[in-house]
């Protein structure tokens, strides 16, 4: 029975209260532990299709008469288009149409960052479109760009009012402290670099605009394209069957989407707009750089008395001032906390959400600070974290729906205990050490999301939901949940996703919420189908049908098919739903060359029930590899005078290779959250990347005594920190 409820909806720290249509979620959770299907490692259903090249990504789609668009982007960090003449481009070979500023959302004369879209042309081939772009006549007025985040804060160039959060009194907390540590941490700008660049094909079929796109939010694209073009939403059909990664940069439509849509409507022909890798490096979003000026105070027994943070997010020309202070506010029981977060508005490409936005950066600062505090207190870093464990939301807030962080710490012990042996393997030039860092994040998901399931007399089922599988393997997760509920083999369940015309609404794949939001709806739909089947079978077999084999009951159906529907129920009222974890990193540092080698990372995470341990561990591995890139080698460099991106290719922008990947040990607590819907499952997409940088930096400190407070930890940063540590030791020796 559907009803309307008022519920809190949270995505990556942004919370809003909304009215939602949900069904009663009356299903009891399954007991903890592996079931027949759920909880057992299961290979991706589309693994072979992907490996064989049969999976159809947006780039694989070709429509008769399709045109190719290219976008004219500002080469300057800040400029105004004084004059623009598209006529020469329109006269170029193969060109069919062109749009300029104001003619498609995202196209503007006022360019506040390099890569800002100004105009676009479409032609028979992509090469023709590119060649035509060069013929567009543009007169630019170059303007002085603002590039320094501290200067932006000083000048009041902010995206929004500074965000202040406070509980207790920071001053009082510092006064009560026996030990106070202060440090400034910096993180760099990194790029998502999904294998598949941003791309869209639009075509007009009758009065419907079809949008084939690489997206993390089928329904978000539908709503925003419809609204931007003044179309009724049902006249926009969004399709994303396969996707090659997004990491937060594809949470909604962008200039490429709108360019394709407008040009398709103008020409009446299908139009593809696909970013090149070089455009992707400039104009497709990033994890912004940060400056974090932090302070922590504690009593000599390690009890935190104060935490303070002045944060600067170097957001760029627009974007979102991510919740970098989240870890400081949420991870530890500390009575006195004050944070201020500035979102610096700069003439740099806009930040977009990137796998645990804010929390990756904020955890680096906070968890390094905790280790610096532990060193001053001469306290074991794991013990320091235990002593400040929050049993409910810090500052006397809401209870947690479930929290297994203490269990994570317990399971971390054997990995943590390796440090004597690891350190003992040091040589004269290669020092080894172990470090750890904790993690807190969202991931509980929430309504609304809906699923349908169709079951036939062959005892095979099709799950239909217009969600997207961004490459995580979540389709397989949905199949497992349906198979478990129906009692049929997972191979007998097909999952159809990624088509707004052919399935019900499903939420966006962000905030580690796909599984926790949509899988309960799938289970509800399967249970609904099962209920209908049993009801029907009672007419034939009487009351004992539950004992009978489903396949046998279904044989009654003949050509009829049962349709079950389900929705995501509400989140528990008055509770906070979060994910937790801890990682233990082992590193080797060549103290003469500054080479850092990550040798092992043990990742212990609490994400509620684990539906597919294989899919979950591959998410952990992917998060850690991406985290290692963030920690050691990746950095988007811009010219400090011009604000233009210098690292625009994959040889200049250094993501980790397989040779950079350490041994990764994944342990998941796998305790269902008893308060969280019919599965008790939370998301795991983001948690694994959160503690990586701090765990590695803390391991480096353990190995060498050097404080690395700036990412990435390149050779020069490592050598600088080592020299500083030597200087400090010398100073200390001189003082003695």
């Amino acid at each position, binding site marked *: 029975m559907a009803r309307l409820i008022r519920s809190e909806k949270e995505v990556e720290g942004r919370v809003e209260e909304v009215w939602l249509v949900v069904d009663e979620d009356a299903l009891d959770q399954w007991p903890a532990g592996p079931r027949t299907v759920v909880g057992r490692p299961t290979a991706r259903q589309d693994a072979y299709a992907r490996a064989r090249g049969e999976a159809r990504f947006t780039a694989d789609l070709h429509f008769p008469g399709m045109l190719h668009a290219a976008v004219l982007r500002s080469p300057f960090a800040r400029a105004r288009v004084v004059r623009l003449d598209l006529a020469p481009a329109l006269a170029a070979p193969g060109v069919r149409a062109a749009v300029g500023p104001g003619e498609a959302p995202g196209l503007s004369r006022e360019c506040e960052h390099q890569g800002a879209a100004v105009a676009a042309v479409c032609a028979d081939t992509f090469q023709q479109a590119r060649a035509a772009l060069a013929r567009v006549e543009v007169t630019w007025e170059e303007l002085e760009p603002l590039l320094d985040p501290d200067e932006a804060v000083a000048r009041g160039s902010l995206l929004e009012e500074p965000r202040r959060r406070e509980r207790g009194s920071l001053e009082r907390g510092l006064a009560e402290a026996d030990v106070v540590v202060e440090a400034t941490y910096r993180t760099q700008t990194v790029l998502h670099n999904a294998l598949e660049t941003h791309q869209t094909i639009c075509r007009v079929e009758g009065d419907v605009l079809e949008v084939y796109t690489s997206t993390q939010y089928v329904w978000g694209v539908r709503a925003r394209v419809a609204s931007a073009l003044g179309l009724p939403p049902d006249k926009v059909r969004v399709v994303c069957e396969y996707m090659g990664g997004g990491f937060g940069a594809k949470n909604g439509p962008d200039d490429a989407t709108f360019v394709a849509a407008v040009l398709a409507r103008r020409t009446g022909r299908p139009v593809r707009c696909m970013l090149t890798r070089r455009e992707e490096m400039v104009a497709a979003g990033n994890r912004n750089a940060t400056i974090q000026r932090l302070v922590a105070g504690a009593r000599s027994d390690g009890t935190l008395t104060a935490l303070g943070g002045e944060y600067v997010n170097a957001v760029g020309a627009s974007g979102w001032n991510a919740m970098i202070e989240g870890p400081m506010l949420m991870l530890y029981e500390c009575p006195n906390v004050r944070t201020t977060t500035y979102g610096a508005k700069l003439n740099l490409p806009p930040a977009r959400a990137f796998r645990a936005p804010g929390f990756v950066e904020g955890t680096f600062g906070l968890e390094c600070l905790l280790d610096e505090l532990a060193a001053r207190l001469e306290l074991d870093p794991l013990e320091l974290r235990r002593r400040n464990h929050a049993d409910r939301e810090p500052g006397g807030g809401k209870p947690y729906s479930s929290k297994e962080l203490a269990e994570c710490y317990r399971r971390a012990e054997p990995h943590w205990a390796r440090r004597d042996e690891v350190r003992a393997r040091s040589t004269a030039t290669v020092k080894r050490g172990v470090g750890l860092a904790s993690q807190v994040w969202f991931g509980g998901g929430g309504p609304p999301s809906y699923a349908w399931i169709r079951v036939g007399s062959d005892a095979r089922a099709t799950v239909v939901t217009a969600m997207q599988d961004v490459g995580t393997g979540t389709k397989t997760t949905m199949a497992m949940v349906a198979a478990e509920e129906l009692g049929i083999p997972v191979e007998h369940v097909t999952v159809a996703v990624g088509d707004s015309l052919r399935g019900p609404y499903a939420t966006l794949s962000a905030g580690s919420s796909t599984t926790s939001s949509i899988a309960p709806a799938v289970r509800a739909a399967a249970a609904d189908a099962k209920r209908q089947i049993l009801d029907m079978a009672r007419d034939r077999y009487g009351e004992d049908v539950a004992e009978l084999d489903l396949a046998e009951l279904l044989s009654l159906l003949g050509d009829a098919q049962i349709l079950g529907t389900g929705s995501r129920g509400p989140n528990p009222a008055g509770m906070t739903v979060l994910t937790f974890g801890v990682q233990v990193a082992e590193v080797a540092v060549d103290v003469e*060359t500054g080479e850092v080698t990550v040798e092992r990372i043990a990742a212990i995470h609490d994400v509620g029930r684990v539906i597919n341990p294989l899919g979950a561990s591959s998410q952990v591995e992917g998060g850690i590899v991406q985290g290692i890139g963030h920690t050691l080698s990746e950095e988007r460099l811009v010219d400090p005078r011009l604000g233009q991106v210098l690292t625009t290719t994959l*040889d200049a922008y250094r993501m980790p*290779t397989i040779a950079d990947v350490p041994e990764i040990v994944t342990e998941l607590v796998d305790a269902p959250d008893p308060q969280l819907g019919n599965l008790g499952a939370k998301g795991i997409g983001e948690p694994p990347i959160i503690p990586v940088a701090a765990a590695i930096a803390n391991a480096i400190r353990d190995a060498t005594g050097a404080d690395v407070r700036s990412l990435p930890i*390149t050779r020069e940063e490592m*050598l600088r920190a080592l020299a500083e540590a030597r200087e400090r030791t010398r100073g200390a020796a001189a003082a003695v």
Partner: protein
Amino acid sequence: MELLRPSSLDELAAVEPGRGAFLAGGTELVPLLRDGLVETETLVDVAGLVPAGIEGTRIGAGATLAAVEADARVPDALREACRLAASPQLRAMGSIGGNLLQATRCWYWRLGYRQCRLHGGDRCLAADGEHREHAVVANDFCASAHPSDVAAALVALGATVCTTRRDLPVRDLYRLPTEEDRRTTTLEPGELLLVLDVPPADASVYLKAMDRKRWSFPLVGVAAVRRGDETTVALAGVAPVPWLDDGSLDAATPLPGTAYKLELARVLVERALAKLG
């Protein structure tokens, strides 16, 4: 675009010098064409003309890095320089001759900034810009760093190269760019590398510092070669050309952001010499 495939060196000689660009493995030329850094309407496929075999001390300039890496007769420094270069895919395609002639990775040059001196402009954008990958020596006119691991190894080994016109030490293949002449090689238009002669050594090593474990150009690469009591050291990544270390590193002029490279170079040279025994 036109593709010429001369079937002999004589036929090649008939092609007007400087017409088109020589194409072998294409791992360098194709990206340069795509980025508009090489502008030509003609490619001359020389893959069938340039020797690719390895015989005794002679290595065909058309040999792939993968082939050189795998040949036990090749001195260790050169094999190791090949092994640590690029990725297996690139090494399977790229020729050793092409590797010697690759352009700098300087982002200002690669992005086509016209002010860049190597593009004929009047300033070095890296010197007071972003330059962590740049030169520490001979960097006053242009701060670009030469990226070839293989070139450093060949310079240290004292290899010579035979072209369609002459024989010369590999070292002399390179020149520092000047106000009058911005080129970084001494090759004349239409001149093609054919064969390398790599004299044997008693011992040789190549050590490399890079930003990740594989598939990176050298921050610093050090090749060291010993013949009897004599040792020779050459470096990659420290100057606009492969750099023979004749004590000149002591007079290095690192930029603010490249001082760490000098530290790296000193450590790697010391380690390389120690490894020579």
